[in-house]
């Protein structure tokens, strides 16, 4: 009986933390973006929202809960109502395996990071459900874009994910953290960058915000949602942003590792959340500073640059890692210079190829432009 009570308590904690963090992060995001755009953002102005309007999100949540839930006429009722539930469930499932500390983890399945990978399609399917059941042009367009974008960006994401797994020799998230004597971002800067960009596309943040491009297609796949159903999508988006940041921090920034964590294990979650928060802030900076790319540019960027680069990285790193191992560099720290050199090499070659391609394209463009004058 006691074990069941503990299970229930643990799941409740895992349920509350994401929502609470989303409430705080929405406030943070609004403030950060306001500052980028030279505004004040939410501020109290004498109401009860508290200093710097820290309770603004709470007030918004209460307001949104009281709003009417409208199911559009002609919508597929069951699927329409199920989509917000699925999106929140999919967003929460990831939190089960995030290692907050050496022993502080909901569950450490032997498939570890692979679990995170297989949870991803459920978010996509909630988008498809929402977009299809709404019977709305904008929602359908948003769904098309979301499917095209997420399905293609999964590939470089998984490919770059394989490199930390290869260096660790395990899928377990806990072992991935333990293996990082150096944060993997220092050893594998290019895969970390690829993973970060692909992750940004997965969670649909600018510059990859095509699925809900509000200047073009209202709100994309959740255009027709109102009240708390809209709130569910909005919350799930922020929960996803933050959990993706935490996963990135776990994979590439050393997870809960940090100074004094051996002496005081309670520092583990603090370090992880701090790192995750920094990654989240970068996402918000992107949101505030980046233009929205066109969908064909997004897909070209993925298929013509990120995917080949991730494949090349996979092959090169696998080879260099083995070579260094055979030459006696058995620890990660000893192999770090080798791996960094490999990263540098691939980076220089990629830069050279891009430069060459760009020159060729520019020459062709110029030739076209001057052609009328030459005749």
């Amino acid at each position, binding site marked *: 009986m006691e074990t069941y009570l503990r299970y229930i308590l643990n799941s409740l904690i895992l349920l509350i933390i994401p929502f609470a963090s989303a409430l705080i992060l929405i406030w943070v995001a609004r403030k950060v973006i306001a500052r980028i755009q030279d505004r004040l953002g939410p501020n109290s102005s004498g109401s009860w929202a508290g200093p710097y309007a820290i309770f603004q999100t709470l007030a918004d949540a209460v307001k949104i809960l009281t709003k009417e839930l409208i199911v559009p006429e002609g919508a597929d009722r069951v699927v329409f109502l199920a989509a917000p539930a699925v999106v929140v469930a999919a967003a929460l499932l990831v939190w089960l395996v995030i290692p907050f500390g050496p022993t502080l983890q909901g569950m450490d399945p*032997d498939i570890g990071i*692979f679990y995170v990978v297989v949870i*991803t399609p459920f978010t996509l*399917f909630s988008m*498809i459900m929402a977009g299809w059941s709404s019977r709305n042009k904008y929602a359908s367009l948003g*769904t*098309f874009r979301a499917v095209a974008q997420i399905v293609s960006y999964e590939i470089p994401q998984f490919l770059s994910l394989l490199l930390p797994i290869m260096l660790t020799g*395990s899928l377990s998230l806990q072992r991935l953290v333990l293996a990082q004597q150096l944060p993997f971002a220092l050893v594998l800067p290019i895969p970390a960058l690829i993973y970060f960009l692909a992750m940004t596309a997965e969670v649909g943040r600018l510059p990859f915000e095509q699925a809900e491009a509000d200047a073009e297609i209202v709100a994309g796949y959740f255009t027709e949602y109102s009240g708390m159903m809209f709130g569910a999508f909005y919350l799930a988006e922020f929960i996803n942003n933050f959990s993706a940041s935490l996963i990135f921090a776990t994979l590439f920034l050393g997870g809960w590792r940090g100074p004094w964590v051996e002496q005081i294990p309670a520092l583990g979650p603090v370090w992880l959340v701090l790192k995750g928060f920094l990654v989240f802030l970068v996402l918000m900076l992107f949101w505030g500073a980046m233009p929205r790319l066109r969908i064909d540019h997004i897909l070209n960027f993925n298929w013509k640059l990120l995917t080949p680069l991730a494949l090349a990285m996979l092959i090169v790193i696998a080879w260099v890692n083995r070579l260094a191992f055979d030459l006696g560099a058995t620890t990660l720290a000893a192999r770090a210079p080798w791996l960094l050199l490999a990263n540098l090499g691939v980076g220089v070659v990629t830069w050279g190829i891009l430069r060459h391609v760009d020159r060729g394209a520019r020459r062709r463009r110029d030739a076209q432009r001057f052609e009328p004058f030459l005749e």
Partner: protein
Amino acid sequence: MTLGFGQIAFLVIAALTVAAALAMVLARHIFHAILLMIAVFVGVAALYVLLGVSFMAGMQLFIYVGGVSVLAVLAIMVTRGFMGDRPRPARSTHGAAVVAAGVFGGLTWLILQVPWPSEPLVPAPQNDLALLGQTLVSRAGYAVPFELASLLLFVVLLGALYIARER
């Protein structure tokens, strides 16, 4: 037989999976059928989890939900109007029913025929994922079939490229 947590969970999940499969076959709209198909895949994955093979469950979700189902949705998107309410064609259901019944009968016959071992053949090692990987790529294991499978996938990729090529 006592009903422990595992047995009850198995019965509930199996019943839900079968119900979802039935509903999928009987669904009027193809999109509903796909959603129910995903429910069936998730149910089968849950059965794998109950059996203690989480890697199989992960593969099940990865390939069937992340791959096959998304592909089905993509196919609907690019062919039949995504927003339209066209019911799915019911031309070939009888033939499909015969084939499905044949497969079902054959599998049932097989399951009843095979003398299933009641004890596990090998004790489950601690890290069976690593063992699986080593078996797949070691020379003493299944390296050649494994590489041949990748060759097959490569040929499929080339075929798809050939079909999709702009002429």
